[in-house]
């Protein structure tokens, strides 16, 4: 049964990956906003932003990567929502396949497609002068944190898709997530912000994740931020997963 579940899930991942490769515009739409922001901040606004020594693109990239993920998972929600409203979800559910594989296929597709988008954004950053002294281990750690963050936000996307009434509603949840990095250490250091804003910026999930990735990419030793970052990711993941499962059970066989 579990072996079947894996085969079924991989067949279904192949299917939804085809959705992505057949509409290349989704990859472009996902990456264009973060890339445009990166260009805007590096070449227009960045000159006036004080981040200490070092290139601004190096400072900026971690936040841009999180924005890429936040805009990518909106498409995960749309794909899942479309499946449920088109009847193909019910076809799969009335077939002798592991039911969990239907949902997991969307989750795995989200991981793969976000990985592709992130690679594109990093390539553009390299062209813009981004350099990192980080070794293989540090890069693996960065990839791990980004994957965990993607997984956490993906379950929020699943929850949104399962509870939404319209496709627009299924994506609405991602807007605040895209906006969140602006009130964090992603673009400017938090110590330039006034009291309450600074307090919010320093205690929301993005800042600890951005700081951790920035340290890893700069080849600095990571401080306690990494535990806060992992705590946030795992916390969001668990809450998103549990609520998604509740919504899923309510949706099927009620």
């Amino acid at each position, binding site marked *: 049964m579990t072996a079947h579940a894996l085969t079924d899930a991989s067949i*279904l991942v192949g299917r939804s990956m085809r959705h992505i490769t057949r509409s290349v515009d989704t990859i472009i739409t996902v990456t264009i906003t973060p890339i445009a922001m990166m260009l805007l901040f590096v070449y227009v606004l960045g000159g006036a932003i004080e981040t200490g020594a070092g290139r601004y693109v190096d400072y900026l990239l971690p936040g841009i990567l999180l924005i890429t993920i936040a805009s990518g998972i909106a498409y995960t929600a749309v794909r899942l929502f479309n499946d449920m409203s088109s009847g193909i979800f019910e076809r799969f559910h009335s077939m002798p396949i592991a039911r969990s594989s239907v949902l997991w296929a969307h989750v795995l597709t989200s991981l793969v497609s976000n990985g592709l988008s992130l690679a594109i954004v990093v390539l553009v950053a390299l062209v813009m002068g981004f350099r990192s002294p980080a070794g293989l281990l540090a890069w693996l750690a960065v990839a791990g944190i980004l994957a965990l963050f993607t997984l956490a936000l993906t379950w929020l996307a699943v929850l949104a898709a399962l509870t939404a009434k319209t496709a627009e509603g299924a994506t609405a949840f991602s807007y605040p997530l895209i906006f969140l990095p602006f009130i964090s250490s992603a673009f400017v250091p938090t110590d330039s912000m006034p009291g309450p804003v600074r307090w919010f910026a320093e205690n929301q999930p993005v800042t600890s994740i951005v700081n951790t990735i920035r340290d890893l990419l700069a080849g600095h030793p990571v401080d306690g931020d990494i535990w806060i970052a992992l705590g946030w990711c795992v916390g969001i993941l668990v809450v998103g997963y549990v609520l998604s499962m509740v919504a899923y059970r309510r949706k099927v066989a009620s």
Partner: protein
Amino acid sequence: MTTTGTDRPPAIQVKGLEKSYKDLQVLRGVDLDVAPGSIFALLGSNGAGKTTIVRILATLLRGDAGTATVNGFDLTTQAARVRESISLTGQFAAVDEVLTGRENLVLVARLRHLPNPGAVADDLLARFDLTDAGARRTATYSGGMRRRLDIAMSLIGSPSVVFLDEPTTGLDPQARNDMWRIVRELADDGTTVLLTTQYLEEAEKLADRIAILHGGRIIADGTLAEIKALVPPAEIEYVEKQPTLEDVFLAIVGSDTTKEIS
């Protein structure tokens, strides 16, 4: 009319099935017996609960009370075995619009773990007059073609019980006639077909047995002749036979064309 199956256990057996959505009681104790290899039509107006029965039998929904077996397997305790025995074709064609017709068939064949998915797909494309359209995305298909593909996907793995929920709603007369032919062929091959319809004519032309669902209960259940006997015999009147508009339509466009241009 098939009378086989009276000695075999029923392909579908439903006893005292009840289902409510919040305060709305949709099914108030439904009893059904469908003989193997027969075509059974569930007739009822919109909102009578036909789709609810089909969704429960296809394990997509759970009933509140009552028992049901499909192909001898209990719906609640042996749901996985039920899913191996059935296929469902819902009211709206459940095809993947981004994939081509052939890819849709291959996908289902792979999910059913069949040995040669490509060959299965090509066979079905030929059988349902879709070979030429097989390489096109289904988003470009006409309503009739989508329906045919939908049914073709449902037949992969040769399920012994097929549920068709309003299979001809929204189809033009030619596509509808194609669908009727497909349903008859299925039953000829020994497949049990339970179809829902709101068209009396469809039940009359296709079904071995008809059940009328009204007010959450089956109020009549029998062969066409038995159901007709429920009302007083018809008086004989002589009227001129006028061709129906449908006869005219089919005569003009030619009813033998099954291929469509979209």
